[in-house]
C-alpha cells in the first residue's frame, strides 16, 4: 500500500481535525481524556481512512473489518474518527458524555453503531478481538480484526491470557496495535519518584515479551502514518500467527502543553487551553499546505 503525497497530506489534515475535535469536545463536555486520544490520533485516522475495510453507511455489515479500542478511555478520539469518516454528523460530538447520548464516556457497542465492542475496563479488548478472529475463521470469513492497546492497559493480566491463547490458535487475522506512549494515568515511580522500593524502573522490552507469547512484532513510529499503514499491510500478510504493531508515540501529541505530561491524561479544558490548542492546530494545518 503506497500513498500519494496528496493522500498523505489529506490524512495528516484529518488527524489535525481529529485532535481539534477532541479538544473541543472535552472543552464542551467539561470532562474527558486527552493524552490518550492524542497519542492514538494518527493511527485512528489511518485505520478509518485507509486500513479498515468498512462502510460507514452500513456499520453492522457482517464482513466488515473489526476495530476494538481496548484503551476505551480514549473514546472521544474514536468518536471523532467515526464522525470524520461519516458514521454520524460532527454535530453529535457535542453530546459527548451528556444524558441520553450515544457517545458514552467509554465506547458502548449497544448504543453507537460503529463501535464493534464495548470497552472501558482496561485489559479487556484483546480477548473479544480474539473471539472475532476465531469467529471469522470458523465462519470462513475474510475480515480482519484490529485491537488497540495502551501500555498501561497491557499491565492487566487478561491481556497476557489473550496473548497466550491467540499465540496457540495462531490467529493471523488478528492484529494488535500497542500505543506505547510510556505514560498512564498516574504512573510508576521515576528517579525522583515515590519511595526507595519503586525507584528502579524495569528493563522494558515489549518486542521480546510479545514474541515470547508467539506473536510477530513490528516496531514503528506511531505518528508516522506511512509506517503505520505499511505495518498494517505487513501484519495482514503475515501468515504464521498474530502480529502486534508496537507503535512508539507521545502522549498528548500535537498540543505543546499536553505532550508527555501525565496530568493531561484526563482534565477539563479551559477556554484559554482551548484557544491555544486551536491556534497550534491551525498553524500545523497551515504548514501542511
Amino acid at each position: 500500500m503506497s500513498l500519494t503525497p496528496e493522500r498523505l497530506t489529506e490524512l495528516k489534515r484529518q488527524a489535525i481535525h481529529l485532535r481539534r475535535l477532541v479538544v473541543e469536545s472535552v472543552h464542551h463536555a467539561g470532562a474527558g481524556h486527552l493524552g490518550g486520544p492524542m497519542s492514538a490520533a494518527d493511527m485512528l485516522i489511518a485505520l478509518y481512512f485507509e486500513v479498515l475495510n468498512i462502510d460507514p453507511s452500513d456499520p453492522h455489515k457482517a464482513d466488515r473489518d473489526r476495530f476494538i479500542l481496548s484503551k476505551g478511555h480514549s473514546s472521544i478520539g474514536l468518536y471523532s474518527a467515526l464522525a470524520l469518516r461519516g458514521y454520524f454528523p460532527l454535530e453529535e460530538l457535542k453530546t459527548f458524555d451528556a444524558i441520553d447520548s450515544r457517545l458514552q464516556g467509554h465506547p458502548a457497542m449497544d448504543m453507537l453503531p460503529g463501535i464493534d465492542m464495548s470497552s472501558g475496563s482496561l485489559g479487556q479488548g484483546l480477548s473479544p478481538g480474539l473471539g472475532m478472529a476465531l469467529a471469522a475463521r470458523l465462519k470462513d470469513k475474510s475480515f480482519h480484526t484490529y485491537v488497540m492497546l495502551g501500555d498501561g492497559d497491557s499491565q492487566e493480566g487478561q491481556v497476557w491470557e489473550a496473548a497466550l491463547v491467540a499465540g496457540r490458535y495462531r490467529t493471523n487475522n488478528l492484529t494488535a496495535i500497542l500505543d506505547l506512549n510510556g505514560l498512564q494515568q498516574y504512573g510508576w515511580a521515576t528517579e525522583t519518584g515515590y519511595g526507595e522500593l519503586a525507584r528502579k524502573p524495569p528493563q522494558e522490552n515489549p518486542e521480546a515479551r510479545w514474541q515470547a507469547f508467539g506473536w510477530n512484532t513490528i516496531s514503528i513510529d506511531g505518528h508516522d502514518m506511512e509506517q503505520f499503514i505499511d505495518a498494517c499491510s505487513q501484519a495482514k500478510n503475515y501468515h504464521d500467527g498474530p502480529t502486534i504493531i508496537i507503535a512508539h508515540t507521545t502522549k498528548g501529541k500535537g498540543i505543546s502543553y499536553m505532550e508527555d505530561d501525565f496530568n493531561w491524561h484526563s482534565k477539563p479544558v479551559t477556554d484559554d487551553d482551548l484557544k491555544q490548542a486551536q491556534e497550534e492546530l491551525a498553524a500545523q494545518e497551515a504548514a501542511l499546505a
Partner: protein
Amino acid sequence: MTTLHLPLTVGDALAAQRDAFGDTLVELIDRDERVYVLDGDLANSTKADKISRERPERFLQMGIAEQNMMGVAAGMASCGLVPWLSSFACFLVNRDLDQLRVVVAQPNLPVKIAGAYSGLLTGKTGKTHQEVSDLSVMRAMPNMTVLSPADAVEVRAAMIAANDSDGPVYIRLTRDPETVVFPSDYTFEIGRAIVVREGSDVTIFSTGAQTVRCLQAADLLAKSGVSAHVVHVPTIKPLDAEAIAEAAARTGRVVTAEDHTIIGGLGGAVAEALGELQPTPMRRVGIRDTFGESAANEDLLEKYGITAEHVANAARDLL
C-alpha cells in the same frame, strides 16, 4: 402468564445434571450452527468433553484463563455465534465477573454461562470450589437471565430455552446424580414458576436440586397432617413475582429453600417480591452467610441445614 401446575413425585430414577449438560450441548450443536463450546480446562468434569470427542469442530479449548474466555465469548457472540462456556460456577461467577459485566451483560450479548458444580455438593473440593452466592451475584447484574433447574430433564429443557433467548444467560448446574422428577416431555419457559405440589397450610418455594428435597419435605409434612404447597422457581430472574404472590396468599405462610446463601438468592428474591406485593410470614432455608467445607454430601446438607427435614421444620415453625 398463567401458572403451570405440574404435580411431581419423587421416584427412584437418578441422573446427573452435568451429563444432561454434555448431552444437550450435542443436541444444540446439531440443530444450531451458531453453537460453540468454550472450555476452561474442565470439560472432563463439566461433561463438555463429550463435544470434544463427538463434535470436535465445535469445541475450543481456552485454557485456564477464564477472563480471556469470557472476552473471547463476547467477541464470538458479537459475530453471530452462540458460545456456551464450560467451567465451574465458582470460577465463572467470580474470576471473570468484570468481563461478564463489561463485554457480555452491558452489550447484552448471547453468551451462555453454565456454572457447573454449584452449591455445596462439589465432590469434596471444599469452599474454594463451592459456589453459594452465584444466584445473588448474577441476579444483581442487569440484562442477565438466571436459571436454576431442578433435575437432568429440566437442565435439558432450560438449555434449549436459554439457547433460543437473545441475551446472556446463567444456568446453575450441580455435579452429582440426583432424583429425576420432571417428565421427559416437559418444556421450559423462562420466567415461569411451577406448582409441583398442591397444598393449603404452607407454601414452600424452592429452586435447583433443592426442589427434590422440598418434595420430600412435603411428604414428611403430610405424615404429620400438614399440607404443603410446593412451588418450584427455576427462573431466578426474571422472577415470576405474580405466581409467587399468589402462592403466598394461598397459605399465608412461606418457606424458601435453596442450596445457596439466603442472602440475595431465591430467599432474597422472594422476600423482596412479597415485601412489595404480599407481605407474608417467612422462613428462609439455605446457607446462613458462611462458606462451606469439604465433606460427604449428606454431612454437608446436614451441617449447613438444607435437608428435607430442615425444610419441614421451618414450615412447622410457621404453623
